[in-house]
């Protein structure tokens, strides 16, 4: 029978990439002087597992490559060899190569094994160098078949099998072995019972029988030794062939058979290899691993849901007013069930942020070598869970921020010594939950941001005016503006702004925000705030004209009825609302969304104040409705991205409602600083009210 194992390839790849990550982490620890045996063990196990799986799927390059890695690691494990800098670096490179090989197989491509072969040689050199003698292919499976040139034909075997008394204790069972032997051909048995002691002395856990077996089967010796393979040290075993002379012609035919047999084997293997390429071709589907505990919980919840459902349908069969209370209870129960179920299902998507953090040790290792900076990476809050999709999208911004900290935040060792700091700089990654948000911080203990230089540069770039009075925060935020930094990178400061606007855009695109804290000479922290999930949100429903829209509840600061006295126009199309000590720009949604082009009478109109990072804007709306949790559906699936809209949802009555994207709205309303020109004076809309 044949069993199709291709369905397990996906999980093998996924697992192997995880193993590679773990190996990398371990190797980096080694490179920092750690000598813990368990670390080496972990790396060894990673290589070992990949080798086993690789061989099972016929990825020979992978298994032979990992085999050498494994031998090398085994030597390290046994203390025969030291994990020195050079060998760790080679092993790190090997991890990269393996990753490439596996990716190629995953994509259904024939991998380029040149690099692997070259690196394998290097690994072998290190391995052999360690023992002083070059090992003679211990792993070689090729054994010269003895008796291949015999002139006699085997027609059967006689076997003497005398198990030692303890044979049963390893779980082996002579009767099953004999049955397997019988499967090879006609068998005659002679049982010897003379070892059986008197009943009183007999121990049931011991084996007292022995056998002489005649087997009429023209099989190879291996077929028989294989059956006794596990017990050869627990028994007396004598296997002798029963032969008869062969005629010349017959022998030739046998040879021929053997040859064609081999040929067929080769042919098949070739086919297998081709199949590898073909079958792996479909794009790997993203999978999530879920603990069975979580699944069990969900199954329990579904069970409760079913109970509630049957209770409700029973009620519905003959409903009278007397049962109204019961119906209400049932509906409450249904609400609780579905909420729990939703939370349970959502929790499947949650993964610890360590998945995102894990790539950084390697990156910091590599970059610090390149830049000749000494850097220690500290992480905390790795267990903080967040939605897998959010995490995937936050990877690039995080890499950017960490690189930014290393490149521009941290000083060179000399500069640090001069500043009275330790030579080794620290980059810290931290994550924690705050309400329905995840906060991820990227900090360094470097030189900090120079407020004056940023301000001067922003004036040069035309982002602010010299007369603008800005708080430190507002100045730092200028780093996140497009156009703050250009290709001109004369100072480390200018470099600091490169691409940070992209980081900000990405994070805002996820419904998050980014803040900067910094102290000159002490360090800088970028704090990213992200929603826990992109799948649902707590929404505030409201109306503009006849259309219902939704705002994420988390973005709403407050809503108020406007007082005419607090409204003041600045530019032709921009009006501000004074709220306590702040001027907040007003976005008229009916105008922005072209629902009604007539300017609205603002007196007594409703204003919803929302925040984006540290900026506030007011949205002019017609009517506030209720709040509810909504499931986010992408508009892009069947339509396309719409500025100012982050998605859609389906309301209880089956109609579709749009979810607003505050960052996009600001962009549309030309309140964004990037739009330059006449709106420039609006750049800092959080302008602290000055004394008049």
């Amino acid at each position, binding site marked *: 029978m044949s*069993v199709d194992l291709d369905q397990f390839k996906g999980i*093998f790849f996924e697992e192997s990439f995880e193993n590679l990550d773990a190996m990398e982490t371990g190797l980096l620890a080694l490179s920092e002087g750690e000598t813990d045996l368990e670390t080496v063990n972990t790396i060894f196990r990673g290589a070992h597992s990949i*080798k*086993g799986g690789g061989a*099972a799927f016929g990825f020979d390059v992978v298994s032979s490559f990992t085999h050498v890695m494994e031998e090398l690691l085994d030597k390290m494990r046994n203390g025969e060899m030291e994990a020195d800098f050079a060998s760790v670096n080679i092993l790190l490179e090997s991890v990269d190569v393996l990753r490439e090989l596996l990716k190629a197989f995953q994509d259904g491509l024939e991998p380029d094994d040149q690099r692997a072969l070259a690196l394998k040689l290097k690994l072998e050199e290190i391995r052999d160098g360690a023992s002083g003698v070059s090992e003679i292919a211990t792993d070689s499976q090729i054994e010269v078949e003895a008796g291949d040139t015999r002139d006699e034909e085997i027609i059967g075997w006689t076997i003497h099998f005398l198990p030692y008394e303890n044979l049963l204790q390893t779980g*082996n069972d002579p009767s*099953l072995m004999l049955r397997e032997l019988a499967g090879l051909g006609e068998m005659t048995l002679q049982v010897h019972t003379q070892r059986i002691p008197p009943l009183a002395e007999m121990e049931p856990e011991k084996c007292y029988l022995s056998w002489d077996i005649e087997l009429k089967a023209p099989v190879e010796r291996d077929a028989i030794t294989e059956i006794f393979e596990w017990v050869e040290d627990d028994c007396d075993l004598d296997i002798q062939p029963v032969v008869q002379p062969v005629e010349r012609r017959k022998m030739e035919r046998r040879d021929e058979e053997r040859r064609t047999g081999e040929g067929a084997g080769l042919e098949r293997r070739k086919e297998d290899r081709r199949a590898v390429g073909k079958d792996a071709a479909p794009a790997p589907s993203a999978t999530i691993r879920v603990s069975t505990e979580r699944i069990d919980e969900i199954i329990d919840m579904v069970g409760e849901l079913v109970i509630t459902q049957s209770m409700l349908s029973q009620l519905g069969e003959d409903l009278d007013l007397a049962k109204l209370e019961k119906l209400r209870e049932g509906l409450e129960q249904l609400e609780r069930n579905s909420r729990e179920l939703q939370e349970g299902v959502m929790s499947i998507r949650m993964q610890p942020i360590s998945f995102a953090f894990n790539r950084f040790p390697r990156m910091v290792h590599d970059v610090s070598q390149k830049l000749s900076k000494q850097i220690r990476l500290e992480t905390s809050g790795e267990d903080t869970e967040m939605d897998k999709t959010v995490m995937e999208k936050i990877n690039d911004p995080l890499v950017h921020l960490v690189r930014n900290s290393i490149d521009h935040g941290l000083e060179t060792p000399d500069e640090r010594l001069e500043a009275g700091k330790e030579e080794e700089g620290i980059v810290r990654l931290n994550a924690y939950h705050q309400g329905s948000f995840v906060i991820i911080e990227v900090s360094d203990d470097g030189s900090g941001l120079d407020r004056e230089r940023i301000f001067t540069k922003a004036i040069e770039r035309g982002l602010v005016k010299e007369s603008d009075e800005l708080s430190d925060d507002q100045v730092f935020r200028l780093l996140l503006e497009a156009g703050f930094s250009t290709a001109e990178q004369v100072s480390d400061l200018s470099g600091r702004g490169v691409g940070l606007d992209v980081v900000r855009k990405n994070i805002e695109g996820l419904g998050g925000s980014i803040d900067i804290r910094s102290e000159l000479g002490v360090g800088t922290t970028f704090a990213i705030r992200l929603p826990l999930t992109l799948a649902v949100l707590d929404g505030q429903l409201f109306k503009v004209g006849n259309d219902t829209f939704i705002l994420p509840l988390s973005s709403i600061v407050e809503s108020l009825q406007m007082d005419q006295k607090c409204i003041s126009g600045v530019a032709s199309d921009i009006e501000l609302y004074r709220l306590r000590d702040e001027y907040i720009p007003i976005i008229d949604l009916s105008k922005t969304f072209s629902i009604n082009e007539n300017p609205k009478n603002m007196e007594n109109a409703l204003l919803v104040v929302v925040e984006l990072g540290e900026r506030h804007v007011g949205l002019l709306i017609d009517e506030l409705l209720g709040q509810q949790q909504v499931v986010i559906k992408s508009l892009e699936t069947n339509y396309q991205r719409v500025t100012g809209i982050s998605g859609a949802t389906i309301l209880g009555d089956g109609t579709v409602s749009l979810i607003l994207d505050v960052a996009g709205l600001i962009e549309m309303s030309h309140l964004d600083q990037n739009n330059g020109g006449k709106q420039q004076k609006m750049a800092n809309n959080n302008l602290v009210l000055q004394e008049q």
Partner: protein
Amino acid sequence: MSKVLIVDDMASMRKMVSFTLESVGHEVTQASDGDEALGIANNNTFDLVVTDVNMPNMDGLTLVKKLRGLANFKFTPILLLTTEAGTEKKMAGKAAGATGWLVKPFNPDKLLATTKRVLG
């Protein structure tokens, strides 16, 4: 039909072995390391245990030793899944009380043939 416990830290290997054994009607329980397997073994009986050697928390050899200490597993066939073809490793397995070994690369037909030897 027999009850089989399969222990491997690689889910892919575990699944392949399970899938293969289930395809001929065995009932398979999976554990991802020796610790977990021992926990399961404490409350269950099996007709066969197939375990990997290199695993975190508790390796295969330790698991075999501990299982042999349990009354329920005194004679239960225990097979080691190993990539090592070396005699040394095999002997270590025997010494720990293993019934036999299956040398990787994993091959479904081979697995079924060999399990027959201990399950009948």
